[in-house]
């Protein structure tokens, strides 16, 4: 509705578009979620299948409430998060420094590049038999698989970003008598940070993808186990609830990494 009349300007109707622009970033995603839930509900009705085979949104909500109330959702989420965090941090802690060293040290890079490219396309899931044999049952094989899944993307993108740092920066460092340690902490690391943030984000996503598969094999907890266990009990509503929890936690993890982009000394990389 257009506001031609000056008196109308003060009316709520005319402020609505402004409120709308402010709320838009929240409103639109909610809208798409609502639409999916609606389609889900309708599809469930039209399918004519029983709720045990194809639970509707309401069944899932009831199941979710049960899982929350008996604490199992929390327990499984924490177990999964623990494994992802451990495996991912391990990958960051080893992959980034190793990438910096290999990016800098050309001989080392030539030495390992073939090996890295050879190991990289092997899916972490292909390691499952070996992981179970080596690490037994429990957290360890799962953490190992998650580590593998995020280690290679991180390593490769760190090497790539170090290779693409402007040589002028190294010359400036030499000009001001930087020690090798200072060159790493004050030149290489900040220079690659804008480039590796997307890699951190992608590899965390991959780690979260892999945790579910890893938990289907060797452990008795975690969201992956919840899915497997619920399937065995023919509780498809719980299966869906676990999937929903995985999605929600995935969004939250992604948000955490995106916050890193707000660091001021990273902003130059976006221009």
């Amino acid at each position, binding site marked *: 509705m257009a506001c031609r009349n000056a008196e109308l300007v003060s009316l709520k109707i005319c402020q609505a578009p402004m409120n709308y622009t402010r709320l838009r970033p929240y409103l639109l995603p909610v809208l798409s979620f609502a639409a999916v839930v609606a389609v889900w509900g309708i599809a469930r009705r039209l399918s004519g299948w029983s709720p045990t085979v194809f639970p509707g949104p309401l069944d899932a909500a009831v199941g979710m409430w049960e899982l929350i109330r008996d604490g199992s959702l929390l327990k499984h989420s924490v177990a999964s998060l623990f494994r992802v965090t451990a495996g991912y941090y391990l990958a960051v802690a080893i992959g980034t420094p190793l990438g910096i060293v290999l990016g800098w040290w050309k001989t080392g890079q030539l030495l390992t590049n073939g090996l890295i490219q050879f190991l990289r396309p092997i899916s972490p899931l292909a390691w499952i038999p070996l992981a179970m044999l080596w690490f037994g049952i429990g957290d360890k094989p799962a953490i190992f698989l998650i580590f593998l899944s995020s280690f290679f993307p991180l390593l490769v993108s760190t090497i790539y970003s170090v290779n693409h740092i402007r040589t002028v920066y190294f*010359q*400036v460092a030499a*000009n*001001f008598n930087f020690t090798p340690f200072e060159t790493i902490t004050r030149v290489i690391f900040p220079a690659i940070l804008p480039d590796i943030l997307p890699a951190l984000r992608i590899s965390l996503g991959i780690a979260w993808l892999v945790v579910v598969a890893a938990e289907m094999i060797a452990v008795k907890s975690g969201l992956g186990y919840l899915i497997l266990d619920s399937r065995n009990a023919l509780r498809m509503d719980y299966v869906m609830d676990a999937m929903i929890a995985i999605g929600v936690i995935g969004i939250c993890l992604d948000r955490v990494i995106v916050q890193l982009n707000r660091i001021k*000394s990273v902003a*130059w990389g976006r221009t």
Partner: protein
Amino acid sequence: MGHILVKDVRKEYVERRGARRRMNSDPDLRSGNHLPVLDGIDLEFANGELVCILGPSGCGKTTLARVIAGFDRPTSGTVLIDGEKVKGPSSEHIFVFQHSGLFPWMTVWENVRLGARHMKEKEEMAAKVQEHLDVVNLTGYEHLYPHQLSGGMQRRAELARALVADPEVLFMDEPFAGLDFLTRLKMREEIINMHELIQKTIVFITHDIDEALVMGDRVVVFTERPAKVRLDLKLEFPHPRDFHSYDELERLRRDVYTELGVHYAL
């Protein structure tokens, strides 16, 4: 101190990659693996001289400056600064790069502070950094990042960083590239004043013949690649200079233009 002696310096770049050679239409690159850039350069700059280096694009000006500053080794010949052979980069010869050398992840203040790294006293260091920011007119912009500054301000910040280090020799590789005409004139003036104040040797690379003649105590003109010294002029005109007041300067200007293949100095 800051006496520079360049003795018969030659520099060749070696192209290892065949693919890159084929892509390049330059006959020098196609015919062989070696690209001679500096061809027997002999020069001597006195302590405290402002030397302007002129030459066609791609002739090897940056290469020579990098060799003198120790970033690159000459293929043959030697460079002595204050009688000592240059072994590598050091904070005694600071380079202001053709394309910005500010660290984009540090604020102006943090960048300039790099020049004062050697100082032990925190307060003394802060005072010195502030003093040099004042000199280049960047007071109030200390906490911005380089990408938040204009091109001219970036050049000035880099200049401040170089000056804080108090080097024996300052290299400036086309420090005014990309600046507008007026800013360029102002920066020119600032550098002349600053040079009179600190009396350090400055090696100043430029494309602008008038700029070189107005600023330099000495003007060196190179030939096309491989670069040889074509002219090495000592200018003893006081500052501020302009071409109308000194007939001799006007004559030199014509000579330099002719040497560089332009017959009508406009």
